[in-house]
């Protein structure tokens, strides 16, 4: 019970925040509630991480820590069960950081500030709930809670063709969750219809023949959110239209729900099918990685560039988990963290620049370095992290992923890895060209000459993110330790079954 309360605090705090926002009378009170709430969440996430590392160091070897369950819908064996392992702790920490910085990034948002933060908080409640849950029903519920606020957040506060993008995003993601729901039913009934708890189902196993049906369903269901080719098309439009903090939260955290779900539900519960059908998805993710990078090269909108870059990087997450070895999977989780942080940073910066210049078209932007040096320098750092410069988070993650991918012998894997590796070069091309174009040179647009640099709230949120990106890049070891013990049981589960890949 104590465990349940402890982990559920991550859901209760947003609930209290919702209540506080509901009662708030003016913008200052709204901001107060948000700062207090997101700080509390961050503090709690740090406490959880410390406690988790401490318990692991003390020799706690259970697969999930702080587990607990309360019966919810008893006739249907639905419980509210919580528990975390290294991966979910890392994800919770990431979410807390993004929510915290996202609050500051939307400090000056107008109009309807209160409503904006209401939906924003509901979204974060869904995200935290998803990561603490180990019951499929609760996970799925929180997953959908996290999706629907996006519609209003983009539709009301977005820019550009926001209505189209919001509708497209919502319908595609909900389409994914229709597949997912079917997959969840399938897993539940084929695993004996006695529990929705993931750990118990993993012990029990899902009937082999049906895995071929449910694995693609769940993988595609989550894969839509993880920007799996060809289901990624919501992502560029959605990101481009979303307001700053929503882009941050969406690319930073929400897309991770996809990768996490693929790993935790699709692959962990159906290892045989993962081995046998994995190659199909491996090819698709390979396409995501390369196609995303090349698409980013030809975009002219800053947000579109970053959105396609996200498709490429999130594709790499799914690519790595499908390699199904420990190094690659650790790399995948590192990449989720790294991508979450640096994309949030990127979107924050783009939002701030857009807020000043009112254009995101790179053809109209130039010489920003002299006009807004702080934002520009940060932009360069974000770009370098994105292209995988050593010392920043991107390098650590991509390095681990590619090393892990090469561990898999066989022409099929090697070829795919080499193809995926090319994305690093392409990323460097578009990032460097972009930085050169908009930041350096002389400013040709006279309207931009009088613009000001970042305000305190913007600086604060950006500095926090840069600190995290650099921290992850400089000291990746403690994070990979944290992740490692979460990845190991899943890999063990996957390794129990022989590889039947037709290309081997």
């Amino acid at each position, binding site marked *: 019970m104590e465990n349940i309360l402890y982990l559920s605090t991550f859901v209760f705090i947003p609930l209290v925040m919702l209540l506080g926002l509901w009662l708030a009378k003016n913008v200052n009170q709204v901001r107060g509630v948000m700062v207090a709430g997101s700080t509390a969440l961050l503090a709690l996430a740090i406490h959880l991480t410390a406690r988790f590392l401490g318990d692991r160091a003390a020799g706690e070897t259970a697969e999930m820590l702080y587990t607990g369950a309360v019966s919810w819908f*008893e006739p249907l064996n639905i419980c509210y069960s919580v528990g975390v392992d290294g991966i979910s702790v890392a994800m919770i920490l990431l979410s807390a950081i993004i929510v915290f910085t996202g609050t500051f990034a939307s400090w000056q948002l107008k109009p309807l500030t209160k409503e904006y933060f209401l939906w924003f908080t509901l979204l974060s409640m869904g995200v935290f709930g998803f990561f603490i849950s180990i019951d499929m029903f609760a996970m799925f*519920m929180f997953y959908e809670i996290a999706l629907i606020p996006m519609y209003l957040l983009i539709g009301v506060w977005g820019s550009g063709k926001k209505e189209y993008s919001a509708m497209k995003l*919502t319908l595609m993601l909900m389409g994914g969750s*229709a597949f997912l729901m*079917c997959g969840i*039913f399938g897993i*539940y009934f084929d695993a004996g*219809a006695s529990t929705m708890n993931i750990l118990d189902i993993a012990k029990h196993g899902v009937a082999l023949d049906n895995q071929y049906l449910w694995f693609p369903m769940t993988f595609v269901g989550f894969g839509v959110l993880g920007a799996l080719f060809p289901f990624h098309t919501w992502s560029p439009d959605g990101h481009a239209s979303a307001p700053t903090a929503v882009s941050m939260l969406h690319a930073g955290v929400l897309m991770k729900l996809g990768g996490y779900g693929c790993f935790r539900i699709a692959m962990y519960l159906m290892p045989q099918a993962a081995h046998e059908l994995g190659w199909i998805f491996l090819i698709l993710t390979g396409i995501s990685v390369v196609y995303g990078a090349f698409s980013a090269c030809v975009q002219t909108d800053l947000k579109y560039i970053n959105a396609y870059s996200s498709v490429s990087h999130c594709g790499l997450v799914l690519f790595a988990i499908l390699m199904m070895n420990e190094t690659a999977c650790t790399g995948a989780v590192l990449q989720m963290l790294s991508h979450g942080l640096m994309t949030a940073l990127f979107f924050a910066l783009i939002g701030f620049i857009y807020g000043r210049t009112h254009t995101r078209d790179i053809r109209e932007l130039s010489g920003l370095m002299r006009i807004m040096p702080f934002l520009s320098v940060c932009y360069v750092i974000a770009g370098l992290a994105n292209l995988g410069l050593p010392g920043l988070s991107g390098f650590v993650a991509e390095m681990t992923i590619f090393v892990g991918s090469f561990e898999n012998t066989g022409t099929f894997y090697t070829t795919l890895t080499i193809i995926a590796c090319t994305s690093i070069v392409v990323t460097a091309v578009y990032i460097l060209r972009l930085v050169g174009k908009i930041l350096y040179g002389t400013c040709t647009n006279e309207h931009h000459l009088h613009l000001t640099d970042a305000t305190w709230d913007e600086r604060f949120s950006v500095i926090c993110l840069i600190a995290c990106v650099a921290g992850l890049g400089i000291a990746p070891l403690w994070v990979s330790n944290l992740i490692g013990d979460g990845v190991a049981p899943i890999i063990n589960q996957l390794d129990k079954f022989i590889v039947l890949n037709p290309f081997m």
Partner: protein
Amino acid sequence: MDYSQFLSMHAELSLLAVILILFVADLFMCPDKKSGKGVYNTCLPAVLLLVHIVLNLLPCASCGTTESFTAFGGMYVHTPMMTVVKSILSVGTLIVFLMAHKWLSREENLVKQGEFYLLTLFTLLGMFFMISAGHFLMFFIGLELASVPMAAVVAFDKKRYESAEASAKFILLALFSAALMLYGMSLLYGATGTLYLEPMGQALAANSWTPLTVAGLALIISGLGFKISLVPFHLWTADTYQGAPTVVTGYLSVISKGAAAFALFTILVKVFGATSYVEMWNEIFFWLIVLSITLANLFAIRQQNLKRFMAFSAISQAGYLVLGLMDGSAQGMTALVFYLFVYMAANLGAFAVMSSVEENSGKINICDYNGLYKTNPKLAFLMTLCLFSLAGIPPFAGFFSKFFIFMAAFKGGHVLLVFIALVNTVVSLYYYLLLVKAMYIQPNESPIATFRSDNYTRLALALCTAGVIFLGIASIVYNYIDALSYGLL
């Protein structure tokens, strides 16, 4: 004759008492025509109905047994589950009464508001008998009692052309469907020699199916399909829903539909419970559900009139509701009743907003709702909650009810059906979001002016919102219904 068996009919008797009190009160309490205020005004029927609900619910909740008993030689059957359904229908009617206040305070309606309550309660009484029937004759009387006064209520706006048209369509098709049912009953009587449901079921189970009995099954399903408005028996729905007064449309879309769905469930399980028939009606329902959900969703997308839009939404919701009928399982029954309860809260909530907007501004088209959020943020917000619940978005109750009804159907192995229904939820989300988009996103230079809803409507909205938020998360409702469902079959 043992008079104590009357007591088993306590639900019907207390409702009848409510009706009689209102009948007498109607003679004395003619409201003041000028001010439109009188004690009678909504308060009395609402309080009486509330008393009826409390009297009706409490014995059931306190005893908690799954025991069922019959009265009058098997004409009347009573189970705790039926009491639950009757209570749900009564709560729905109460909400309808609350939201009807403003509409009934219109000058032309003031003199006849007594009739509205009486006619509506008579249809409710008819539904009670329909649900509790143990004999086809009883069932048919209940069905007629539920339809004929309904036609009068649909035509309540007598100066409005559409209202009369709607009523004519309703009564003609109701009679037609009743005729179909009667024909089905007579065929079954010919095949089995009895009109009692359970003996008929035993007789049908004892022999293999014949074309005669299958025709009976098909005719009964089509007869009740009209009431539930499943495609292809839905043709009256859109016109009637559009033409009827908004409040009445709310009543039609939830209460009569729910009662008919539950009654259909009982008849199918009792009469056609044998395996060979179950397979047969599974096949029939597969197509009915697929058609209802898909076609209604596609039609709903194109609608401009909100009532017509809700009509198609209701048809597709009926398709989901009927998913609980597959296999006639106990889990399906629980899911169906729970779905009905949740659907009632969400749909009546949406109708309460619609009727409030209509009474205050006279507008009923979707494009009139553009920019509603700017002027009436609370109403727009509540409407959004209800629409999200209808679309099955967590944490609102609709998510839970959809999940459970899909789960029940999936359990019976109807994977393809569940998948089609799931894909359709995305389509339905699209059109519900169109309305959300109208309220929140679409710019409008002259949105509906800010107004204050009357207190009755507010109470109705509060009840519906509470239902939408808590019915799902608080698992007690589902668990309670589930505990009763095993006793029914």
